[in-house]
């Protein structure tokens, strides 16, 4: 397979990332009359069902570092995080005017209530608050969740003006299985050779997956991996960290770059967790909605928005990641005013401290601009690991 140089691929991803008018998604929609685009917010929605309805799932992750928020600040008090205000700003400014519907997953009260704001302000749009179960027994939470997905399927079918068959969903499950495999390959590659796949690049590559159709994104990841493997890049004497807490409002790209520049290779993270939410392939045989339900119940990532029924398992997802990725430490990176991340943090710290896993905590907003203090903090963290860790 021929491939573009890595810089060219990353530049293309960065252009998608910076384009808050979502030209790529608009192009996709305009290419065939009748196509629909469904926006979704973090952390997880079953994109397979949107895809099966012939629609483009579009990840909406806020307005980023550079977008000026004017209207959005009139919607939210100062003590509420930034992602809902920049998302509203985009909607009011017409950046989301081509989006036919929005999905708001059950992650926190702010995103939950944003679904109500959408209903009040955009009455002609399809709006779906998507509740995932906090009970993980197949006959209880599983049945509830499967029925919620059926309601979603029927709502989207109504919007599409056509039936969404089980075969449609099976095909979409296969597409996303393939996409997830390549996402995991990129993450594995970065963990093995972090100097060859800098986190800012991996981040941009994954952000492209929030906008592009999954088939196209899969091809892009394949191309990137081939290009990154071929590139000759110097290995730095960085420590290896897992970054956690950034599963909703995203940090500025400069923050990710700053962490690596200061001496921390990010070898795992929870940015855009949706791309790796399901930990195993979803079977493509049998009842597709039942399969998606089972995958959620039994094989999905742990994050602060999800209840952990077994107290002994609390934090195990992060600890497993530290071990699997051979990380030296953890960076808790939480958006300001993020209830899930900030309330979860003390519990997770209580699990990693006894294991001697070093950590630091940083707080950000998507438009944070002062990186020097963060660089100093993470640089000191990296130095302390290099100087005093047992390895």
């Amino acid at each position: 397979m021929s491939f573009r140089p890595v810089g060219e691929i990353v530049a293309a991803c960065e252009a998608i990332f910076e384009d808050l008018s979502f030209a790529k998604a608009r192009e996709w929609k305009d290419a065939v009359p009748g196509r629909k685009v469904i926006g979704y917010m973090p952390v997880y929605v079953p994109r397979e069902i949107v895809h099966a309805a012939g629609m483009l799932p579009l990840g909406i992750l806020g307005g980023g570092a550079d977008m000026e928020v004017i209207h959005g600040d009139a919607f939210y008090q100062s003590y509420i995080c930034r992602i809902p205000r920049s998302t509203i700003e985009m909607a009011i400014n017409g950046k989301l005017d081509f989006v036919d519907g929005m999905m708001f997953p059950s992650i926190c009260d702010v995103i939950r209530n944003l679904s109500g704001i959408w209903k009040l302000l955009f009455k002609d749009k399809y709006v779906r608050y998507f509740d995932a179960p906090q009970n993980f027994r197949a006959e209880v939470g599983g049945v509830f969740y499967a029925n919620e997905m059926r309601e979603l399927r029927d709502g989207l079918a109504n919007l599409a003006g056509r039936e969404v068959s089980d075969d449609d969903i099976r095909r979409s499950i296969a597409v996303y299985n393939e996409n997830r495999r390549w996402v995991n390959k990129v993450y594995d590659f970065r963990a093995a050779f972090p100097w060859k796949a800098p986190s800012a690049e991996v981040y941009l590559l994954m952000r492209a997956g929030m906008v592009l159709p999954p088939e196209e994104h899969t091809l892009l990841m394949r191309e990137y991996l081939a290009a990154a493997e071929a590139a000759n890049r110097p290995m730095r004497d960085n420590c290896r960290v897992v970054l956690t807490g950034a599963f909703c409002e995203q940090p500025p790209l400069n923050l990710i770059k700053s962490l690596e520049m200061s001496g921390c290779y990010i070898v795992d993270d929870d940015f855009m967790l949706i791309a790796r939410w399901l930990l195993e392939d979803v079977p493509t045989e049998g009842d597709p909605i039942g399969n998606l339900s089972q995958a959620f119940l039994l094989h999905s990532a742990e994050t602060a928005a999800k209840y952990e029924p077994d107290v002994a398992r609390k934090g195990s997802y992060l600890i497993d990641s530290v071990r699997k990725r051979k990380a030296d430490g953890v960076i808790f990176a939480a958006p300001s005013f993020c209830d899930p991340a900030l309330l979860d943090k003390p519990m997770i710290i209580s699990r990693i401290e006894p294991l001697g896993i070093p950590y630091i905590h940083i707080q950000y907003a998507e438009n944070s601009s002062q990186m020097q203090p963060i660089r100093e903090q993470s640089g000191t963290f990296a130095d302390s690991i290099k100087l005093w860790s047992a390895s």
Partner: protein
Amino acid sequence: MSGQEVVKSNSQMVQKEMITRNYDRITGGTAKVSSTFVPGNLNELLMCFDIANNLPEINAIQNAMRKKSGEMIAEAERSGHSEDVCTYVKCDIGMMAKGNIAPNGKPFPDPDVLLLSYTGCFTFMKWFELLREQYKCPTVMLHVPYAADGRPTKNMRDYIVKQLKEDVIPVLEKVSGVKFDIDRLREYLRKSAIAENDLVWMLESSKHKPSPVDCYFGGVYYMGPIFTAFRGTDEAIEYYRLLRAEIEQRIALGLCAQSPDGDMPEENYRLVVEGPPNWTSFRDFWRMFSEAGAVVVASSYTKVGGVYDYDGFRHDPDHPLETLADYCLGVYTNRNLPTRVDMLARNIVDYDADGLLINSIKSCNSFSAGQLVMMREIEKITGKPGAFIETDLVDPRYFSAANVKNRLESYFQMIDQKRRAGGSAAAGAGN
């Protein structure tokens, strides 16, 4: 002014005794104890297992009103909790660190079970995950889906009923050693419905002019028994009968609502209030209204533990588990924003209010996120002015008396101007 002696009605005294008795039961060492939350509070179910009901939000409120919450929050922040998160949680965690002393001066026992009724508030889940770390007792999750389309669905109801049958009841049986008896539950639910009828009568009594009650500052007292450990009991029935008689007498005498200093001499403004009150300066806050002759005729906070007046919900003994599910699904913060807007707009019209005041709480995104949009929508629907103040639940750092008073005075002036321009008629004229 906070040093003045507070004037209390008979019903308030009775309610205080009831709350004290519940704390004595919790700390008495004989009953099994559950911790659970006010919204989605399954008191009737807990009673079936003779389990005492301890509510951490109420403990935080008690600590705030006793001026103890500030140091408890500081304690929690010192132990690693963020300044940005819910102060109820931090107050609770700080209280544990400071000996976990109940308002009656006795130590709280460790709960025998954490009944995590995950209803209308995301933070509840994290709160009890945090408490579970400390107490290491059985924790049972009751996930109540959000009524995002404004009404519960069959799928939601079935899911809750299944959780009750397959998770919650078996855990409570095991913890208590008491076998579940559905007829016992039916009997408690029948009693709940009787008390709920009088509760709704009380809420609607503020349609009178002058209103005989304040449905925010006074309302939080009147809500006490039904939202805490007494729904389903004879005591609650008696309490609401007493309250009703008291209010009937006030109406007959043409009395204005009570304030911390006795009956308000006049009623100048009738308000609907959205959001919880501030608890650290509760009476000072109340006086800012009562001294201006402002009475709250309806509030969303008095629906936080259950909505009974909007769509006629009463606990139904003929469908005991289903009615518990419907109750949980219907609590105020589990309803979507368009429903909350409709509810408050109707209140403004039905109670002939001068406008909507939002007390936006820093700690509580479940209430606060979206309130500015709600205010604009309600102004649009009713043509009545809205106003916005910001305080916190139990963190004294976020109550700026001068700022709040200033905004309230401006709001009252705005209402006066509206009246002069031909808007709302002056309140207080008898009907």
